[in-house]
């Protein structure tokens, strides 16, 4: 599995392709299901147009937390592999923010684990977003 905090723009589809080619050959023929979530920055939040977003994290704890929740998910749903990439730094609307992908034998584990990972990430992973609006900046106060 691979967890990475990425400080420059990435293409989630290319990363997925490249991870699948590079790291999954050992699992070829074993995974029947791949579930993927990609989060992308929008240009609008709570009635305001967002021009730019800065994503901060807690170096060390963020990676540790994401790795731990993957291992929790892998035990609960028997996953074969997983990939979590999350941006930090400056983002503009339409930039990918996060990629979560899991591979498993069957679809119900893949769907559920992917959902679980995203919900845990949103609730507990130490990241903070600061938005640049037309008339100033604000910290996003809580996740949806």
């Amino acid at each position, binding site marked *: 599995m691979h967890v990475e905090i990425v400080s420059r723009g990435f293409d989630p589809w290319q990363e997925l392709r490249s991870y699948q080619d590079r790291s999954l050959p050992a699992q070829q023929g074993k995974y029947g299901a791949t579930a993927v979530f990609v*989060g992308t920055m929008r240009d609008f939040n709570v009635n305001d147009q967002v021009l730019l977003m800065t994503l*901060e994290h807690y170096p060390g*704890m963020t990676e540790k937390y994401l790795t731990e929740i993957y291992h929790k998910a892998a035990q609960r749903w028997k996953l074969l592999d997983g990939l979590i990439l*999350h941006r930090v730094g400056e983002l503009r609307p339409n930039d990918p*923010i996060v990629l979560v992908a899991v591979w498993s034998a069957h679809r119900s584990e893949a769907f559920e684990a992917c959902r679980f990972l995203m919900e845990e990430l*949103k609730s507990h992973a130490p990241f903070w*977003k600061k938005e640049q609006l037309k008339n100033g900046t604000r*910290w996003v106060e*809580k996740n949806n």
Partner: protein
Amino acid sequence: MLHLSYCEQSNDAWDKYSVAVKTIDVQVRFFASLRERLGRAEDCVTLPRGATVAQVWDQVSGGEPLPDNVLIAVNMEYAQSEQPVQGEDEVAFFPPVTGG
């Protein structure tokens, strides 16, 4: 009251001294809007042995009550304010997380 913090020191003499006077040094970190509000990303406090996270907060905030929505991590694991801290621990305080 003279407050001395030897957080930057790390040597045998200081270690013996701190054992004798029963104090511990704790590294503190702040993130996001809390960092902006407190005006610093890091701090270091010297506390009596057996101190808890709540006492760390008390010192870094100048006696402000710990807000309900401030999250705590000790050595990069989530923790509660009642948790005791040990020498060289890293205690982080931060607002609700908003990743993803």
